[in-house]
């Protein structure tokens, strides 16, 4: 139960970093929208869970944030990827691809391959 949440949080953090990497500085709502568009239902509900993740990334120094005007001239907090965040993203991406590749190979394997 607890572990599943952690995995999701980790995934969410990776998505946040990638989104900021691709789109540049963005406010919380914008990040939520992009993730929703790309990942479908992962963030279609409970968008609020994004904010603790953003806070955590900021405390780790992966993102920086500041108040700024949104497209509709509304006050919003904009998040920006830092150098630390970029290298973190790079490391996480490598990890993730490696894990995904290993898992993929396990799924492809058939009983005759192991004989």
């Amino acid at each position, binding site marked *: 139960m607890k572990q599943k949440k952690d995995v999701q949080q980790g995934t969410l953090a990776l998505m946040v970093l990638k989104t900021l990497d691709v789109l540049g500085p963005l*406010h*919380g709502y914008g990040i939520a929208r992009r993730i929703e568009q790309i990942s479908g239902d992962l963030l279609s*509900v*409970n968008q*609020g869970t994004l904010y*603790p993740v953003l806070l955590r990334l900021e*405390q780790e120094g992966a993102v920086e944030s500041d108040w700024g005007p949104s497209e*509709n001239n509304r006050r919003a907090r904009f998040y920006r990827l830092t150098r630390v965040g970029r290298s973190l993203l790079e490391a996480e991406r490598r990890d993730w691809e490696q894990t995904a590749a290993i898992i993929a190979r396990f799924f492809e394997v058939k009983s005759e391959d192991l004989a």
Partner: protein
Amino acid sequence: MRALKRLLARIRNVAASRRGDERLREEMEAHLAMQSEENVRAGMAPAEARRQARLKFGAVEAVREEYHAEEGLPILESVAQDTRFSLRQMRRSPGFTLAVVLTLTLGIGATTAIFTLVYSTLLRSLPYPAADRIVAIHDTRISGQSTGGLMSVPRYFDVLARNRSFAAMGFFFFDQSTMIAGNRLPMAVQAAGTNAGFWDVLGARPMLGRTFDAQDDQPKMPETVVLSYSGWQKLFGGDQGVLHERITLDGAAATIIGVMPPSVDAPSGIDMWHTAQFPASGWNYRGEAVRFINVLARLRPGVTAAMAQSDLNRIGVQLQSQYPQTDGMWRFTSESLRDDRYGALRPALVALQLAAAVLLLIACVNVANLLLSRASARQREVAVRRALGASAGRIARQFLTESLVLAIVGGSAGLAAAWLLVHEAAAKLPGRLSAPGTVEMHWPVAALAAAVSILTGIVFGLVPAVESRRVELNTAMKRGEARVGGSGNRFRSALVAAQAGLCLVLLVGAALLGESLWRLVRSPLGFEPDHLLTFSVKLPWDAQNAAITNFYDAVQRRVEALPGVVAVGQISALPTRDWHLRSSFDADWLPRIPNQPAINAEDRSIAGNLLGAMRVPLLQGRTFTDADTRLQQSPVLVNQALAQRFLPGGNPVGRHLLAGGESHEIIGVIANIRGTAGALSNPIGPEVYWPADSPGASAQGRYFVVRTQLPPAALVRSIREQVHAVDSRQAIGDVATMDELLDQSVAQPRLNMAVVAAFAGIALLLACVGIYGVVAYFVAQRTQEIGVRMALGATRSQIAGLFLRRAMVPTVAGAAAGTGFALAAGRLLSSQLYGVQVDDPRIYAASALALLIPVLAAAMGAALRAARMNPLDALRIE
């Protein structure tokens, strides 16, 4: 790295009590607004748009919670919360809190106070640079009694010349001196003769001026003096201008060249050091009369204590073959300076520390018991909190925090109490413990007290914490059903047994020490100590025999003539003084073996009417007459121990002791005088008494013993006047009554006994309170059952017996186990005991009674309350 960054950010947030609530609220507002606008653009009605936005956002409270958890240190916050809750709990039940805090104050206070003693003596480094490199070298007889480690001067110079282990060597000897400063009256001072090397060994810097150098220590150089801090204060009022002042010391001119800081206390309690000015060579006489120096040495770099000892062994063997007659029976031993000073105290201190630890354990058991009872009473609270979603761990943490808070409060109070006690009582401790700066509370002691508090908090807090996990929600929620299972009761019985056992250990210790002190004080001394005034007089060391005899004769006659004086005697050293002079003899009735004299005995010189003044019984023969002092080969008196050991059943009167080619006739046998060579508890060995005024005796320093009908203090002034009248350059020193000397001599055993007895008393009280509490708890728990039993015809005595058994079975079992522990622990005490065996069954029987009777009374009190219960009330309690 990232985790660290996060932790730091969190700590910063907590420290600045920064809350992201506002920021989160604003961000959420913005988020919802943007989502709503989006929804409106997609064609929703504004109200619906806003509702959908909320739904999509999710549970705001949950997000806020998570956000908050990310932001701060949740554990820290719950600790703060628990602490606040604990303090509130403490305020709400002041009786319980007071009981716990007081119990802990006693336990931790006692442990801390005793540890202050242990740390000050056995652990703290001595106040000299690299003090662990300083060793004390003792001259030790290969068999039989030594002279307290004192070395003879020629042997010192032999070691100095032949050793390969020591960077510096020094010595000191005690010297009762008479000082005349300016135009003041002569004063008796405590001095120590030392050499220049002594200061190199200690490595201590003077506060003012300088110490002796090798030049000052040459024979026939002008005498120089270094004052101790206390001597400087006492004799010169702490005057800075004291340097270069010229004084007269034992009739010779001397110059004050320095003042030492208070920390330099080698040896302790002296007023000054003066140069010994011993020549390094030309010591043809190597006998017992020059065995009077205490030797210290500093190890050369790279040399260990063991290497130094084997070096000393080598020199010892060389000297044994070189001088078989004088050195054949002697070897060198060495120990660290700390052991030399405090080694004798170690067993007593270890025993006291153990006693304190046992008391602390009892206190912990008691507190655990109290907390357990309370935890039972709070089961419904626990059940409710569990039902509302608190995890078992969270509640256990709450209980642990509560006990920790109690422990810290109790520990602080204990530390404060110990500090006060040390502050007040340090100067009143026996022996060298009372020297200023010896026993003080230092940071490591306070740190230990803190550690012990926290540890005890954890230890006794774990019990209710573990118990709280056992709570069955279902039953506990139903009123009156909440019960810790039978295991809780077994645990309580175990606590009772532990308490009883530990308590018995302390009681046995107290009984052993008490009995030992009683025997020490009551066993016959060999003299009558009441109405005796004692004082010392010291003539210059170069005084001539005739002058010495005339002076002491005159003083003797004048003091005898004072009103109220019954008898006056003189002796070279008083009982209870740690003073040694021994000789070896052959006897004309024993076989003679070359270089192995048959008898080794303590020597004392006496004059005047010593036996009459002290009322020492003369068992056989006669005492000295004036005619005896004129004989070239003095006759001697011996004590009963010598006669019994070397001539059992025979009469030594008329036989002879042989030494150095002389023959000394034994003219009488006197009773054994206890404490002749130090502590009263020392076994009594052979002793030989010489006439102090015989030719060649040269007894410059003597103690007077005056038996008086008046209060002894009333005589002091007139005695001082009489001595001054005989010789205006002389003073009297060491004025004390014999009762005072005996009192000082038993101060350490008395302290041991008092401390352990106090601990045992407290422990007994705690045990009674604890056991009463347990029985009362059982009674409260089984009120209904009592009602039913009574209704079914149980008598009151049966009911009382039921609970009495519950208390007494574990108590007796615990006491039995405690007896085993006490037997083992008693061995630690054996070196502290006098005239009582560690396994004396009477001691154990008495201690068991002392434990069982009050405990029985306490348990009876609680059990009778159960028996007096009205069965109707008991049944109606539900």
